[in-house]
């Protein structure tokens, strides 16, 4: 009998030592992420949620191609590594074979909103009961700082040396607003991890998303995390967080975009 | 004994199902059979054909280009297949659908008024079964009993009430060949 079919069992953490410690679901190793990068925080949050919901035994993650390609080195759960852009198709295959498992994808902007756009839209349109975590840092970090579909107008990247020119490169893609229109999307939110408060809100969003999946609410939960890329942006971590506040959030406004219907 | 047959006409005339019924009847009698259809966009209102082989021995190629018998239900098919009937073979065609009659001298030609007969039986959809009856009168490839057995398998349950009318059609088709020969 899986935890999901028994209903939600939440392990409330009272011991503060455990709050400060590494969650038991996060493998004890050094992450490859650059200093200040948001990926490591989001990894930790997902693993905290999996730990607190007591679903480690039934969680299956799908890693993308991009900076998070090695997510399975850090998350102590069964994981499958997808081809570039196809994480949600892979997750669909897993979830359809094992409907009582808690399946999630973890993708960057290039993976989810460029090469994998069709899979993103159709997975959500089918209302696959999975959680999608979308890290939007506006750049291709892994391949060396090229333009991403979400790169803002004027931003300099290694393939927009004069800044993103809308006439030449098109517009930053607000895929989260797009997919919120789909009937299969159950919960769509845009969060960040640049401050302690933002981190707490993102964790709450992740917690809700996994709970919805466990309850089989009938739809996809989608969590965008607008994050930074100090290396790709050629900034210090602090500068990159300021850049988020001053520029990025103005274009990618934080908050819930689609919330579940009130019961 | 081996029978190699081409059945050709327009999509919607029951060409493929006639062939399928014949093949199924062959299988009911324990024979080796194959049914190879034309397929694809050419079936959308265009010509359709199927090759049926019924044999006592294993069938090597389901793809052949000469036939013991051709059953022709429209003019384009007549033009395509008249010459591919083997010498001393049989060429059956539906009278109402053929304007330019075949001219082959070294095959036996049977002009079957199946369309008119189907109207007389008040069901134009059974034209193909009348033709099938005629086929079996020309060459007793399988028995009518086996064809009726096959129809039970080929037709979905909701259409089983149509088996009697199909039986009448088959019998009428057989009679027609006799009438034409004696005429």
């Amino acid at each position, binding site marked *: 009998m*899986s935890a999901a079919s028994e209903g939600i069992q939440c392990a409330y953490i009272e011991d503060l030592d455990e709050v400060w410690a590494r969650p038991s679901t996060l493998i004890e190793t050094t992450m490859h992420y650059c200093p200040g990068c948001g990926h490591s925080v989001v990894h930790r949050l997902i693993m905290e949620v999996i730990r607190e919901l007591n679903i480690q035994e039934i969680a299956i993650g799908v890693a993308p191609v991009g900076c998070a390609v090695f997510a*399975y080195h850090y998350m102590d759960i069964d994981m*499958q590594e997808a081809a570039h852009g*196809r994480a949600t*198709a892979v997750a669909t295959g*897993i979830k359809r*074979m094992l409907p009582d498992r808690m399946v999630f994808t973890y993708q960057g902007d290039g993976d989810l909103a460029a090469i994998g756009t069709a899979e993103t839209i159709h997975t959500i349109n089918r209302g696959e009961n999975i959680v999608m975590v979308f890290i939007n840092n506006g750049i291709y970090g892994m391949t060396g700082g090229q333009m991403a579909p979400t790169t803002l107008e004027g931003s300099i990247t290694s393939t927009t040396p004069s800044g993103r020119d809308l006439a030449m490169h098109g517009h930053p893609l607000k895929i989260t607003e797009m997919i919120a229109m789909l009937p299969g999307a159950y919960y769509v939110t845009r969060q960040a991890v640049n401050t302690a408060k933002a981190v707490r809100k993102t964790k709450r969003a992740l917690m809700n998303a996994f709970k919805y999946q466990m309850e089989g609410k009938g739809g996809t939960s989608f969590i965008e995390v607008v994050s930074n890329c100090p290396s790709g942006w050629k900034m210090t971590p602090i500068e990159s967080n300021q850049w988020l506040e001053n520029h990025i959030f103005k274009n990618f406004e934080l908050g819930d975009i689609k919330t579940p219907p009130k019961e | 004994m081996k029978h190699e047959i081409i059945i050709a006409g327009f999509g919607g005339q029951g060409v493929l199902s006639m062939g399928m019924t014949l*093949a199924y009847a062959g299988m009911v009698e324990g024979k080796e059979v194959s049914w190879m*259809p034309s397929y694809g966009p050419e079936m959308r209102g265009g010509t359709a054909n199927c090759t049926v082989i019924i044999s006592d021995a294993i069938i090597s190629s389901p793809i052949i280009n000469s036939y013991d018998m051709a059953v022709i239900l429209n003019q384009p098919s007549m033009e395509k297949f008249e010459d591919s009937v083997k010498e001393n073979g049989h060429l059956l065609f539906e009278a109402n659908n053929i304007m330019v009659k075949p001219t082959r001298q070294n095959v036996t030609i049977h002009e079957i008024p199946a369309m008119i007969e189907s109207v007389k039986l008040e069901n134009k959809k059974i034209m193909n079964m009348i033709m099938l009856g005629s086929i079996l009168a020309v060459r007793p490839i399988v028995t009518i009993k086996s064809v009726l057995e096959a129809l039970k*398998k080929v037709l979905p349950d909701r259409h089983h009430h149509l088996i009697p009318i199909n039986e009448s059609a088959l019998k009428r088709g057989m009679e027609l060949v006799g009438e034409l020969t004696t005429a």
Partner: protein
Amino acid sequence: MNTKVLMKGNEALAEAAIRAGLKGYFGYPITPQSELLEYISRELPKRGGSFIQAESEIAAINMVYGGAGTGERVMTSTSSPGYSLMQECISYIACAELPCLLVNVVRGGPGLGTIQPSQGDYFQAVKGGGHGDYRVIVLAPNSVQEMADFTYLGMDLADQYRNPVLILADGALGQMMEPVIFPDYNPEDHKVDHSAWATRGKPNDRDHNVITTLHLVSEKMEEVNLTLQEKYRTIVQNEVRYETIEVDDADFIIVAFGLTSRVAHKSVELARAEGLKVGLLRPQTLFPFPTNILSELADRVRGMLVVEMNAGQMVEDVRLAVNGKIPVSFHGRMGGIIPQPEEILDRIKLVYNVNEMETA
């Protein structure tokens, strides 16, 4: 119990897959394999499996990758242009050593081509098709019965070797009807325990399972390759399958697979009727290829003719096997045209005599 039924090749394959314990089918419509997809969409959900019509062949094969990662029996089917689209992920599946069944009901190419039958995907099917050094076990049925039989076999081989297995059919085999008998087969008896590697959720008593094909350290990636190659050698040793017809006294051999072998069989009959001692060798597995038997036959026949519905693909493997011992000729038709028994016979007569002159 096991009654004979008259079925289309596509439908017989679909029915066999379900009887073999198929749990997930992911596909996209394309002629001439759509009956397969339609049959499974109708039958699989009511017989305990999951069906998805994906948004593309790319999505479909990646769903197969995900489904196969759970260790359940999964498959897809497509036709040539769709199989091209799937190549990237087939490389992943092969590298990750996941079991699954693939079906390519080949149509004429290149490009959008035609929907008529072809064998133009031999290279793509047998030589890899996607990136990197990998192999897919390729089964080539030549009858509706084998469309069913090879589906069971393919599922078993996929599980046994943790490798994708491809059924390489063609438009005509998919569309034609012949009698088929479904054998007794209880999927439970064929179940392979995949729990050691499958991603089904991590119990407390084992390390987490990870399915990945990324190994950035060159030495590690070479190790992965060496393991794969070792497996492929085992497959070559154990899984070669072929059929011979009238080869015992033959002094000339036709080599053909799939539908073409049926036509070639008829040509053998025609040739024998004229007193020519012609035999047929039909590879049933294209990878592994029946190299040894071809090499043996080359020691005692005067020549071979390879017949394919393409511009000459398998003929390269036949020539490698024969290794220059005897002349190997080729006769091919393209664009969806099926060679006729008589034209093959004409070709046999031509090369038969030429070879005679050469040996004289």
